[in-house]
C-alpha cells in the first residue's frame, strides 16, 4: 500500500552500511583499529570470494542448511499438530500444559549434552537439538493461534451445522494460520541459532564449524566471511518466510512487516 518508505528508504539503508564499511576500511588500513582483529571489509570479501571459488564454502553451507531444514521439519510439524490439538481441546491442553510449561523455559543449548547422550555424537543428535529448539516456539504459537480465534467464528460454524471436520478445516486451520506462520518464523530463527551453536561445539562441517576453525587458525578474515554468510542466511530465510506468509495468507497484509 504505502510504497513511499521503501523507495526512499532503501538508498538510506545502503548508505549507512556503506558509511560504516568505508570507515572500517579506512581505520583498519591505517591501523587505527587492529587489522588483526578487524580486517578491512575488502579483505573479508576477498576471503569470502576465495571460499566460494575453492569450493570450501559449499559443503559447510550445505551441512548447515541440511541440519536446519531437517530440524525444522522434525520439530515444526509435530509442534504445529500438538499445538493445534492443545488449542482446540481443553482436555489435551490440561494434559500437556504442565509438561510444556516445565520444558519450554529450558535454554535449548543447555540440553545439547543430554541429546548427545541419547542420540550419540553423530548427525542425528545435531538435527534433534535443532528440532527441539524449533518444537516449542512453534507449539506455543500454534496453541495460542487457536485460542485467539474469535468465539464468534465458532458460533457461526455451529449455527450452520458445520461438523467438527469442517470447523477444523474452514475455521481452526485458516484462523490460526497467521500465528502459526509467525511461530514457524521464530522456529526458523531458533533453528539457525541452534544449528550454529551445535556446529561450534561438535561439528567438522557447517558454517559454525567453519568459523570455529577460522578462530583456531586465527584467520580472522575467514571468520568474518563466515559470519557474513550466516547473517545473509538469516536474512534470506526471513525474506522467504515473508513471501510464504503473503502467499498462504492472502487476507492479511504482510508488506509492512
Amino acid at each position, binding site marked *: 500500500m504505502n510504497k513511499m518508505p521503501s523507495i526512499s528508504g532503501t538508498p538510506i539503508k545502503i548508505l549507512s552500511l556503506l558509511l560504516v564499511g568505508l570507515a572500517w576500511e579506512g581505520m583498519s588500513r591505517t591501523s587505527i583499529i587492529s587489522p588483526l582483529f578487524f580486517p578491512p571489509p575488502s579483505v573479508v570479501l576477498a576471503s569470502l570470494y576465495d571460499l566460494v571459488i575453492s569450493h570450501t564454502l559449499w559443503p559447510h553451507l550445505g551441512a548447515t542448511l541440511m541440519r536446519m531444514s531437517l530440524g525444522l521439519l522434525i520439530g515444526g510439524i509435530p509442534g504445529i499438530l500438538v499445538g493445534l490439538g492443545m488449542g482446540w481441546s481443553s482436555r489435551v491442553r490440561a494434559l500437556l500444559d504442565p509438561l510444556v510449561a516445565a520444558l519450554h523455559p529450558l535454554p535449548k543449548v543447555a540440553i545439547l549434552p543430554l541429546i548427545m547422550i541419547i542420540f550419540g555424537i553423530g548427525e542425528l543428535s545435531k538435527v534433534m537439538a535443532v528440532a527441539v529448539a524449533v518444537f516449542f516456539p512453534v507449539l506455543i504459537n500454534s496453541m495460542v493461534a487457536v485460542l485467539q480465534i*474469535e468465539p*464468534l*467464528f465458532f*458460533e*457461526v*460454524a*455451529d*449455527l*450452520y*451445522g*458445520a461438523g467438527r471436520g*469442517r470447523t477444523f478445516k*474452514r*475455521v481452526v486451520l*485458516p*484462523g490460526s*494460520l497467521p500465528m502459526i506462520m509467525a511461530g514457524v518464523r521464530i522456529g526458523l530463527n531458533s533453528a539457525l541459532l541452534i544449528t550454529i551453536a551445535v556446529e561450534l561445539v561438535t561439528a567438522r562441517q557447517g558454517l559454525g564449524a567453519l568459523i570455529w576453525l577460522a578462530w583456531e587458525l586465527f584467520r580472522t578474515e575467514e571468520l568474518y566471511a563466515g559470519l557474513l554468510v550466516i547473517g545473509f542466511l538469516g536474512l534470506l530465510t526471513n525474506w522467504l518466510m515473508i513471501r510464504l506468509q503473503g502467499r498462504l*495468507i*492472502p*487476507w492479511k497484509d504482510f508488506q509492512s512487516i
Partner: protein
Amino acid sequence: MGFHCEDLSKHYQTRERDLHAISGVNLSVEDEEFVCLIGPSGCGKTTLLKLIAGLLQPSSGRICFDTDPPAGRIRAGMVFQEQGLFPWMTIVQNAAFGLECMKTSSQSARERAADFLLQLGLGDFLNEYPHQLSGGMRQRVAIARVILADPQILLMDEPFGSLDAQTRMVLIDELLRIWSTYRKTVLYVTHDIEEALLLADRIVVLSGRPGTILETIEVTAERPRRKALPTDTILADIRARVWELVEGDVRQDLHIEESRHE
C-alpha cells in the same frame, strides 16, 4: 415458522457472582412475523437470540417451535453486529458457507452464492476479502449468507448498529425488500427506536438486567413507513411510549438522576 419462549431464563455463573442475563421471558412470535426487540445495553438481548439459535442452553424455561426444520436445513440463522464474516474467506466463499454446510457441493454452493451476490449488486467483489469491503457491504454479504442458507427463523443482532445513519437507512430498506421476498420469521434486536418503527410488526421492550419483557406494542402501519414516519401520529405515539419505557434504564446506566428540572 412461529415459536414460543416459555418462562425463559438464563444466568451465567462467574467467579464473583451470578449474572442473570434474562429472566422469565414469555414471548410468542408468529410465522413470518417481524419482531423488534428493544432495550438498554446489557439487557440480555443477544443472550435471548443465542438461546433461540441453540447456541446457548436456557437455565430454565423452554422454547417451543411450531415445526421441525426439514432434514438438512437449519432452524435459525443469525446475523451478528459485526465481524460475522470469516476474514480468511473471500466474499463468495463466505456467502456460500451456510449452503456448503448443508451438504451442497461446494461447486454449486458457490455458483448459487455468486448468483445471489450478483443480484444484490456485489458481483464485482466476489473474490475480495472482507477487509477490502466497507462495513455496510460486509453486512450485506452476511445477510446474503443467511438468506442463501434459507433458515426458518432469521435472528438479527443489531446488524446495522455499527454503521453510519445514511448507510443504515438504505440497508433497512433493502432488508425490508429481501424480507418481503423471502418472508421469514424475524427477531431483530436494536437499540434504535426509529429502526424498530420502520421494520417491526411488533416491538417488544425489554428492561435492564435481568432482561424481562416490559411491554409489547403492535405496529400496524403500512410499509414502507419512511415517508410517514415524521408525521404519522400513531407512530409518534409508539415512539413516545417506547422511549418512556427505556428512558429510565438509560438514565440509570449513565447515573443521571430522574429529570431534575421537574
